[in-house]
């Protein structure tokens, strides 16, 4: 029964695909305002406070998401549909004694006494501040969907083993087992070593599948390019975890290689120390930027190719745009796995370096 629910969920997702397509904002499509590819692309690449699906006959079909703010008055929550899809700071929402506007997907709190937001020459608001925003945004929502899907996939896979008498994988388990064995035999074992890899397996497996599935979700158009793994906050957090685990599990040998490199003359030791010290931080930072840049770049390329139709304002470009973006999308499908693999294997490599024993 578990597997059939799993199949149903995936069938639903597949059926939803044809309805998809990168929805072009209704403002851009309908008004005479000139199409701004930069704005459209940024809108899709960045996070949003509502889950916008499509527009139909002047109505916007979207899923409102909760806005959670920490203001001077404490926790303030309301649903994002109170803004009525406004992103220009025109609609003022009053909640918990504060007035809020949404401007370019940011929630501003108006200063007391102000009734509407006023802007300076650079279109920055002058009488509003940014409260601490921990809203459940589009990306957070998709992250939770991905968590549900991951739990569904892997708990039903684990169930297969529990049910079978001789641990024979069938159904979903025969699909995920090669992937899990791949992470174990191609990533953890060679990078960390036979004796210590087991401790890091849950982290490596989780991070591999978490990144991979969110990379894939970012490519599904109906989800409106919820670009979670192309968001620097997401990659920053995962890189931070890798950094923390590396630093915590660093042994004597690891720190010796950083502060007092063995096997080189003393001036070299002193010279290498700051470089190695910087290296501690550049490693996770490179992880963060690599994943963010790769995924975001892929999205931008696809969206830019699609924008060509609207820039040239002719349907004749469409075949070329569609063909190229199809090509890039296929490459992106490969990139989803490659980037998850790279993030995982580099994390494993850092753990391996941190736990490597001194060898003579």
């Amino acid at each position, binding site marked *: 029964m578990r597997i059939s629910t799993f199949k149903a969920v995936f069938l639903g997702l597949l059926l939803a695909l044809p309805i998809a397509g990168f929805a072009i904002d209704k403002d851009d499509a309908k008004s005479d305002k000139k199409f701004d590819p930069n704005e459209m692309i940024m809108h899709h690449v960045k996070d949003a406070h509502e889950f916008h699906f499509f527009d139909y006959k002047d109505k916007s079909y979207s899923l409102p998401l909760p806005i959670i703010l920490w203001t001077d008055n404490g926790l303030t929550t309301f649903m994002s549909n109170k803004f009525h899809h406004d992103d220009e700071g025109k609609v003022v929402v009053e909640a918990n004694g504060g007035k809020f506007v949404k401007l370019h997907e940011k929630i501003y709190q108006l200063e007391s006494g102000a009734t509407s937001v006023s802007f300076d020459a650079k279109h920055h608001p002058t009488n509003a501040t940014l409260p601490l925003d921990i809203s459940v945004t589009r990306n957070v929502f998709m992250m939770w969907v991905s968590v549900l899907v991951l739990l569904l996939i892997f708990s039903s896979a684990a169930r297969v*083993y529990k049910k079978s008498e001789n641990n024979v994988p069938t159904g979903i388990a025969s699909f995920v*087992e090669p992937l899990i064995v791949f992470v174990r035999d191609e990533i953890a074992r060679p990078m960390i070593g036979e004796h210590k890899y087991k401790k890091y397996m*849950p982290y490596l*497996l*989780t991070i591999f599948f978490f990144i991979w599935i969110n990379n894939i979700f970012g490519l599904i158009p109906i989800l409106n390019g919820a670009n979670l793994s192309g968001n*620097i*906050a997401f990659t920053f957090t995962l890189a931070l975890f890798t950094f923390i685990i590396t630093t915590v599990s660093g042994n004597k040998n690891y720190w010796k290689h950083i502060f007092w490199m063995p096997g080189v003359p003393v001036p070299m030791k002193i010279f290498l120390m700051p470089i190695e010290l910087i290296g501690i931080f550049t490693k996770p930072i490179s992880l963060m930027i690599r994943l963010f840049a790769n995924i975001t770049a892929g999205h931008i390329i696809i969206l830019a190719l699609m924008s060509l139709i609207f820039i040239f304002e002719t349907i004749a470009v469409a075949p070329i745009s569609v063909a190229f973006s199809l090509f890039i999308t296929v490459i992106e499908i490969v990139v989803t796995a490659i980037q998850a693999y790279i993030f995982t294997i580099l994390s494993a490599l850092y753990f391996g370096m941190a736990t490597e024993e001194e060898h003579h």
Partner: protein
Amino acid sequence: MELVKPGFGLVFWTALTFIFLLLLLRKLAWKPILGAVSDREQSIKDALASAEEAKKEMQNLQADNENLLKEARAERESMIKDAREVKVKMIDEAKTEAQAEAAKIMEQAKAAIESERNAAVADLKKQVADLSVEIAEKVVKGELADKGKQAALVDKLLSETTLN
């Protein structure tokens, strides 16, 4: 620039969600799946090792069988050889014994024949003597039916008898 500034909200939720996911998957999925996979690998390894062992044992058994067969064959051969020898010996013994027995029987037969013959001869002698006496008696009776003849015989007998 906003694109590369991590927003606090997403960092917060990502951290929370990731830790939650890590703990949940570790308990629900990774432990059972990795355990099952390594169990199976171990059992495959064991099965292969025991198959190897069985093969070796099989070979040993086969070698043992071969040896046994060889021994059995050798024993049979030696038994046949022994039997042949025994047979020959027995025949020889039987022959000599038979010969001895035959010789003995012959000897006895000869002795019996001899004694029978002697007895027969003795008997014959006696009968001949009796017969002779009878005949002589009859002859004498006949001869001596008249007085002349009796006197002639006495004369004859007397003449024949030489006095010494």
